[in-house]
């Protein structure tokens, strides 16, 4: 925890993702790992959590191809957004860089990072190749 006693988990997550690293938090009380990070453990309610690196491999649970987007994504339509379950069971949303014809349930994916964006908006998912 920082000296001002504000638990800035989102700032830490964004600092790391700006360096192309996916992180979560680990509860120092019960060991539960959470992605995205949150300031209080969902399992034991302890506020004693620390940022830890997270393996970016997972599988695609569900997705949508968005044809009408908000102004910040208007020039990118259609684009695909999906929810991915990581190997530790935690889940994240992100842009999916996989052609629509190849999208299937439980498709193995791996985290990727958009160099054009800052912070949490950098997260993308690409198809995992074997060995990755």
């Amino acid at each position, binding site marked *: 925890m920082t000296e001002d006693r504000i638990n800035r988990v989102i700032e830490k997550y964004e600092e790391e993702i700006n360096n192309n690293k996916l992180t979560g938090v680990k509860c120092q009380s019960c060991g539960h790992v959470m992605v*995205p990070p949150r300031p209080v453990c969902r399992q034991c309610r302890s506020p004693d959590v620390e940022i830890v690196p997270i393996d970016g491999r997972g599988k695609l649970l*569900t997705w*949508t191809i*968005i044809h*009408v987007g*908000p102004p910040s994504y208007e020039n990118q339509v259609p684009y695909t957004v999906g929810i991915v379950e990581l190997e530790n069971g935690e889940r994240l*949303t992100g842009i999916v860089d996989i052609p629509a014809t190849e999208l299937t349930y439980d498709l193995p994916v791996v985290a990727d990072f958009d160099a054009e964006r800052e912070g949490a908006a950098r997260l993308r998912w690409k198809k995992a190749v074997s060995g990755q």
Partner: protein
Amino acid sequence: MRDVAIIGTGMTKFGSLGRVTSRELVTSAALEAMEDAGVASSDIDAVYIGQLSGDIFEHQMHAAPGIPDYLGLPNVPSTRVEAACASGGLSVMHAIMAVAGGFYDTVLAAGAEKMTNLPTTHVTEALSMCADDVFEVSLGVTFPGAFAMMARAHEKEYGTTAEMRAAVAVKNHDHALLNPKAQFHKKITIEKVVNSLMIADPLTLYDCSPITDGAAAVIVVPWEDRKKYDGIAVKVRSFAQASDTMSLHDRKDLTGFTTTKIAAQKAFERAGLEPKDIDILEVHDCFTIAEIMALEDMGFYKKGEGGRAALDGETRRDGSLPVNVSGGLKAKGHPIGATGVAQIAEITNQLRGTAGRRQVPDVEIGMTQNLGGSGSTIVCHILERGD
């Protein structure tokens, strides 16, 4: 705690209403509700107003005092309630709690939104602010997108098809034909829904509720005082609210809402009732899949049966369980803050026998389900015909 009655309802026309402010819209709905209740404006001792975003849509925050101001009651306490698309349902819930607790005796609970001032992409952006800004919206998630991901998960788990979802839209458009205040009076077909413009695959334009201006209002009084007024009373049997994570991905079940399950179950428990006791429902069909999931999560159908029920016509006005006889959000329209209030107004009118051409015969107990965000807020109410 006191039992509570609803004795008056009012609603503006829903649709694209041109150059008008939401406080003017609430004023119209409120005057109609007060006349229906037989309540003088001088009787009103508190106001609750459900509104998502006067700031973005109208460049007007602090909506609450504007309502008593325009009603000529500038010193009556007024509170804005914001809970995304559940703002209206929570506005009524807070009015009920204030009357039940004995703090106020005659309360105006209203809701309004003036959405058509902005182009569609900007409305989409404003609504998306009800999702998690850091972990969803910054990644391009829209509300049609969030419900589309649930529709796909529901399709995978239970085989719910595009035709089943479309049947919800067709039904609610049929229902709206009998509601003069509905935004749409247009019959549609399953083929039209399935083949319309794709918004967020697999949801098409006709799977989505529209952008709407409008207001609704109800008058809430103690049950023991109901005979003091000319309005026909319905009794509030129960209400219940639940919250869940801001982000959809933080929930294990992507085929429904735990919040709906909890709020419905608590509302049933508090009323001493079960799903089989409910004669008529207004549920939050912001998207067709949302109505299917609501009926399943509330316990009216087993998971995976909601789509079939729509396709088989069970939830039509003349079916075994009439759902969204008003036309629902889908065809009556969805002026965000007004929606939950309009649901309660519709059930009130149906139970009192004052629903006009769309009156469903012999309904005694009705229920509403109002949803905010991707189900992060749910509020349910159960109402019963009065004496």
